């Protein structure tokens, strides 16, 4: 089912829903919120998430959202969004999410439209800097280079929460949909290729825009909010099939996300939060004339955040990402004439968040990086295995 057809269904919901509640609709019911962030990235070596080696201001997000309760059971919401992160986004304005939400009972509700994908504990909020202590979400589990696959889909979901009193409660969401449209990545070099250099080389280093169509996408997320106060654990997964069309060429790559899963744990005790997640990906690229390229990537991290006082929070995290876990030391990459450091990304980060006033925050962050997986570009000879990344960012919310 095409995305346009889904949006037509959504519009029908809006018309009927609005007509049914027209008599009781008040302007005061509309809620509007937003956020804006601007940051700066600087690396000692290697370009990462932009031209960070020279210093990059291409690092911002702006979002504005509206929530419209139509009746006790029906509401509509939409968020307009613009972002820039190196070659990603380039401040194109688009609809981040827009859906009708029908709540039947506590344990069953339905959404239809463009919906943020429930994947891991932090995927849905990945673009809102105001919601975390750190600047960069852990790239070992939430890599920006494949953000297009996970950030949102057009389709339907069913969701709900079961309360078990002394056993806590269970939240779920299952979905079906499609991902369509041009990637917000302007360069192939900045996208999949940085994570899968072997794929890039097989395509002879072409740099093109690409359109992604992921159809037949199904997935779900289950979270157990345990009876231990502050402890929740969850699992999420998806399967999808589709293709990537390289614009300006006759090249189409068949893409199968056999499975993408994230297992999550979070424990909040007073001002301290512990979090850990594991990403498992099994993706297959198929291109006429070359053998199928299976990618089984793995990433995980652990993080501790401490809300020290009202105006200060600190976080430390350590993440590891392996594009090909059966080659963690990079010997296969070396055999293929590539640097062994392409086989891993080890990222130790320290973050400070200053809440200047209620709706204005400033963050400082430093990363010690070991490995060049996910680094931009293919000039491997000039890359350093061990390097630092510094980031500063300021955000407003309303």
């Amino acid at each position, binding site marked *: 089912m095409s995305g346009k057809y889904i949006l037509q269904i959504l519009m029908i919901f809006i018309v009927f829903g609005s007509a049914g509640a027209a008599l009781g609709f008040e302007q005061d019911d509309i809620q509007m919120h937003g956020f804006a962030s601007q940051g700066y990235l600087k690396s000692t070596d290697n370009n990462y998430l932009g031209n960070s080696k020279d210093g990059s201001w291409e690092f911002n997000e702006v979002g504005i959202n509206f929530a419209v309760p139509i009746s006790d059971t029906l509401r509509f919401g*939409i968020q307009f969004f613009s972002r820039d992160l190196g070659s990603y986004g380039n401040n194109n304005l688009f609809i981040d999410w827009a859906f009708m939400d029908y709540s039947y009972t*506590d344990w069953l509700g339905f959404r239809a439209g463009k919906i943020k994908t429930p994947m891991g504990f932090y995927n849905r909020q990945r673009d809102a800097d105001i919601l975390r202590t750190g600047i960069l979400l852990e790239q070992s589990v939430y890599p920006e280079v494949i953000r297009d696959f996970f950030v949102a889909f057009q389709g339907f979901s069913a969701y709900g929460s079961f309360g078990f009193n002394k056993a806590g409660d269970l939240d779920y969401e299952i979905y079906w949909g499609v991902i369509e449209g041009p990637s917000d990545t302007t360069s192939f070099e900045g996208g999949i290729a940085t994570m899968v250099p072997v794929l890039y080389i097989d395509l002879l280093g072409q740099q093109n825009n690409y359109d992604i169509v992921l159809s037949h996408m199904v997935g779900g997320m289950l979270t157990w909010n345990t009876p231990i106060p502050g402890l929740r654990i969850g699992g999420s997964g998806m399967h999808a099939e589709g293709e990537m069309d390289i614009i300006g060429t006759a090249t189409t790559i068949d893409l199968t996300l056999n499975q993408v899963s994230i297992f999550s744990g979070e424990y909040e005790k007073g001002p301290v939060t512990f979090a850990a997640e594991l990403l498992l990906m099994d993706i297959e690229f198929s291109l006429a004339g070359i053998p199928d390229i299976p990618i089984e990537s793995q990433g995980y991290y652990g993080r501790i955040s401490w809300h020290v006082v009202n105006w200060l929070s600190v976080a430390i995290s350590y993440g590891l990402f392996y594009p090909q876990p059966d080659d963690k030391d990079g010997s296969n990459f070396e055999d293929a004439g590539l640097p062994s450091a392409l086989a891993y990304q080890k990222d130790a980060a320290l973050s400070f968040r200053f809440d200047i006033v209620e709706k204005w925050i400033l963050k400082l962050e430093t990363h010690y990086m070991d490995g060049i997986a996910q680094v931009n570009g293919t000039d491997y000879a000039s890359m350093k295995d061990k390097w630092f990344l510094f980031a500063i960012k300021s955000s407003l919310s309303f």
Partner: protein
Amino acid sequence: MRVIKASGFAVILLVLLCRYASADILMIVNSSVKETTITKADIKRIFLGKKKWWDDKQKVNAVIIKESPVHSEFVTTYIDKSPSSFSSYWKRAVVTGTGIPPKSFDTEAEIVKFIQETAGSVGYISVDTPHDGVNILTIE
């Protein structure tokens, strides 16, 4: 004997303190709400947006007080979150479209007035706040 008396006094004091701590907050509801008791689990689910309906299918309309000692005590005791964590929880819902935060008020008097006038509404106040015209839920 002295040790037994001291221990007994300590136990009584502890019980009184616990009763005092739990009696700082009153859960109040509109007169349309049929429930007379509520569990801590249901309080948590209501104010995290997971319990949306009373038993008679009337919509739950939860309200909160903006940053204040009674709000801090309420979210810490009944939601198992710090005030900043509770605020972040609803900011996440807003940014992702998955929920609409409870209406918030500056004073407990405004809370009481809203609950007097709004069917299905539920909120919390300190025990000393006048609350004519609303029902009290006993916390189980």
